[in-house]
């Protein structure tokens, strides 16, 4: 279901649509929050942001779109969380043990996946050395414009290289070989 259709129905008083809107947003917010603050508190932040959206969406005017507005709400919640965490870290003793890490990835990827990924990367390195080179640059900490300069490509071409490599990787992980 499209987010704007859900919004229109929910604004018209459809409770099912409002529930679906909440479900729609919470999974997305969780993903975005997890990327910024780690797994531990991403669920809480996502729920909080969704509640704020549901409280205000009926009376709000969205100048740059509903999704941009909801994103602003989420970013504000994440900002408050980070500030609160930093404040706690500053004022609590011992600080190192009492606060959660800002970026954690507690879900360890499966061992099998790791092996499969490495095998696929070996294959891709031979068939698509440009992707391997780009990945290496990313690992070395180069920024997009620096990578583009070193490769002599435009940013658009750079994104194409990345997406081609990703597709190869996905196919390889799925089928065990690069078609």
């Amino acid at each position: 279901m499209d987010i704007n259709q859900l919004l229109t129905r929910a604004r018209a008083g459809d409770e099912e649509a409002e529930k679906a809107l909440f479900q729609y947003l919470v999974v997305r917010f969780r993903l975005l929050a997890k990327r910024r603050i780690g797994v531990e508190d991403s669920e809480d932040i996502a729920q909080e942001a969704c509640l704020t959206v549901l409280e205000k969406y009926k009376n709000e005017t969205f100048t740059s779109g509903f999704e941009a507005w909801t994103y602003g709400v989420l970013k504000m919640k994440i900002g408050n969380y980070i500030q609160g965490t930093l404040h706690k870290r500053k004022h609590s003793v011992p600080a190192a043990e009492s606060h959660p890490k800002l970026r954690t990835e507690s879900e360890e990827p499966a061992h099998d996946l790791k092996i499969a990924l490495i095998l696929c990367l070996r294959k891709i390195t031979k068939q698509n050395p440009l992707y391997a080179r780009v990945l290496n640059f990313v690992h070395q900490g180069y920024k997009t414009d620096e990578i583009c300069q070193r490769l002599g490509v435009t940013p658009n071409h750079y994104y194409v290289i990345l997406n081609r490599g990703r597709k190869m990787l996905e196919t390889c992980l799925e089928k065990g070989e690069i078609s």
Partner: protein
Amino acid sequence: MKPVCKDPEIGALLHAYELHALTDEETSRFEIHLIACEHCFNLVQGFQKQAALLLSDETVKALLTEANPEEQARPETVPGSLRQYLWPDIPLVFKPALAYLLILILIIPAYLGLKRTPENAIRTIQSIHLTPFRSVEENAFAKKTGLDGLIQFVFSDAVPGAQYDVRIVSEDERIIYHDKAFDRFDAYGTGSLLLPVAGMEPGRYSLVITDPRGEEPSNRETYHFSVN
């Protein structure tokens, strides 16, 4: 029906987003797109573990470094270093060092101009103030300073604008200064003269003010001062 990307132009940033290779602005654009685009959201969600491995796994890193032995690590930039602060990687017009330089170029001449003008325009002088009353203070100019001397004197009942005879006479009766139409008395009867002290001989001098309209000897006031 399989969803398709709502905006392929932004959707193209997908893998760069997964690899944390976008700028903050691009990240925001892509994340707003993610909220609305089912297709990209599913892709990002389904690739989270792979992306985490690609980004942070040491074996993956080693494999990529091995595959690209000629690529050197990006030179470390010290965050907050003075050079980076003064000359960051931004368009030339926004570089702070350039701004400081331009401000200095503009300020220095203005500062020097302001500093020099009063020095040139106003010369230091030495002054004495002669009153009809006795004073313990010796009315003397110091010749060795090389400064001009301002002599201020009072002539009782002087009328501002009226003309008086003012002369300075040396001990040996030489007239050093003579103005038959001195009219620079203020409302309090005070007049002033600027003397080139450096060019005067050391000795005692008399300042004689005469009202040509009055009767002698009450129309005259005499003061004495010296140049040492």
